[in-house]
């Protein structure tokens, strides 16, 4: 992908318990030149985050067993993933979730349904800034 410094495709880890959501996000991102890693549970997402060296994570919040905020906490505790940029991609419009995401220092908070182009741009921008972003995209 031309936007990355090494001219390599950006590797995005998508973590969502709904396989249909993972599939549509993957289809969109692959079409835009990203490399996509797919996880349908928090546990699987944590494993891939450690082993597959993604550049960024798109993380659902409301998942059974290990929810998104817990996945985020564990990523930050692990030296291998402590600096990995994370953007939440969730159906929750709750202000407390958005505030918590900001307080935790997440790189972004995008609500479903999202604009595919806005998602792509947000990912590119966040990676360009090395995760130092705080993007909030709400559906309308």
């Amino acid at each position, binding site marked *: 992908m031309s936007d990355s410094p090494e001219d390599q495709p950006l590797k995005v880890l998508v973590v969502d*318990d*709904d396989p*249909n*959501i993972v*599939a*549509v*996000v993957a*289809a*969109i991102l692959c*079409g835009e030149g990203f490399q996509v890693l797919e996880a349908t549970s928090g546990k699987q997402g944590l494993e891939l985050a450690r082993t597959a060296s993604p550049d960024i994570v798109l993380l659902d919040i*409301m*998942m*059974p067993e290990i*929810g998104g905020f817990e996945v985020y906490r564990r990523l930050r505790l692990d030296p291998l993933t402590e600096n990995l940029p994370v953007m939440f991609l969730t*159906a*929750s*419009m709750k202000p407390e979730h958005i505030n918590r995401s900001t307080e935790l220092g997440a790189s972004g908070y995008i*609500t*479903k*349904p*999202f*604009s*595919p*182009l806005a998602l792509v741009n947000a990912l590119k921008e966040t990676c360009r800034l090395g995760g130092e972003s705080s993007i909030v995209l709400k*559906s309308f």
Partner: protein
Amino acid sequence: MKVGLRNEQESSAEKMEIISRIKEISCDLERTAPETGEYQKELMAVVGRINTVGRTVSRTLAAKKALQRSEEFLQRVTDAANDAIMLVGSTGKITYSNPAGERMFGYAAGGLPGREMESVVPARRDSDSSLQDHYTRLAEQGPGPGDIGTVEMTGLRRGGNEFPVEVSISMVPDNGQQVTEAIIGDISERKTAQATIEKQTEELRNLIDVAAHELRHPATIFKGYAFLLLERRETLSPEAFDDAVRRIDEAATRVTRLVNDLFDASRIERGKMGVKREDVQPGKLIIRAVEETRMNGCQRDFILASHDEMTELHADPERIKQVLWILLDNADKFSPENTDVEIWHESNGAEVVFHVADRGPGVPEEKRAVLFERFFQGEDVLHHSTPGIGLGLHIARTIVNEHGGWIEVRPREGGGSDFCFGIPAFGRPLDITPVPEDPATEEPGVKVGIFS
């Protein structure tokens, strides 16, 4: 009233008679002794004073009667009141209670005066606000009428039962002393109604949250694939194109189910579910329900294991099928892949019992009773990975109840759950009728089939 008038009339007549008699004596004196004129004047003055006294007596008597009538009226008003009306002396003891107060707190007539007010409306345990605090605040205001409004507290009946009350307290001056007047209402019914409304409001809020959350998923699918099909169509392989369309179709099914569930829930709430009974064959209903479930994209293997084709059922076929869809869909959602779901019916003549048995995780005993309640989900509804808003089993139970039947879940031998419901048959044994297009009837006498 009549006695009073008569007394006044008699008093007036006597007075007139006295005056008349004095006038006669006066005339006699005038005739017989003109020199007694001075004496006559004195007599007339006496007559005038008597008249004045008479008028005063009449007014006093009338005022006394009016006061008595007023007191009797007030007594009737307090006796007839539904709320307790009590007077409390400066020592905190009740000096008066109307009959409603005695009934409310479970005392016989006259049983409350002399008792501590704290014995019927104790100080609130959960805060520093007690009746005594209110008395103190009122006392600090000094003599004179004062009203601190109403406060919700707990009443204590003679037997020890507590109940919610609303107490209105005011201070009434009486002969230089301060008397506390407490008007106490039993608000048990209001509290129950409030709790019901609050519960329903909370359920409605949850429903809106859950429905909104549930709709975001298919909306994401629609929006994502619409982008791909409109903007990136040239990059899609034929397989990717088919996959996109298939997922859009599945998402549309999910939305349709959600809307149907909401519509049915609304009809249930308004008591308009309704059933249209006709004679139907339970075996056919099962086959159709399975066919339609699979047409909606379900890939699960269903084992048809009915051993009875003799029975006819008098029921609403569409509604019974709806119950079966809900149970089949439920079994599919919560069963591991590569496990089958068994479905059959049986009859004892009085009722037909349908079974949908899965190899899912089962339902813990403590959850079986609430499983069919509205909005129940085995896990947090916003954190579950399976579609649905917790209305399906509630709708199923309502349909079954409308038929006069029952529904329950039992543990299945070997693991899993057996969801079963019974519908009164009201039918008659049928002649053996081949069921068209039923794989289970392909072999005579064998009524077990597999849908896969």
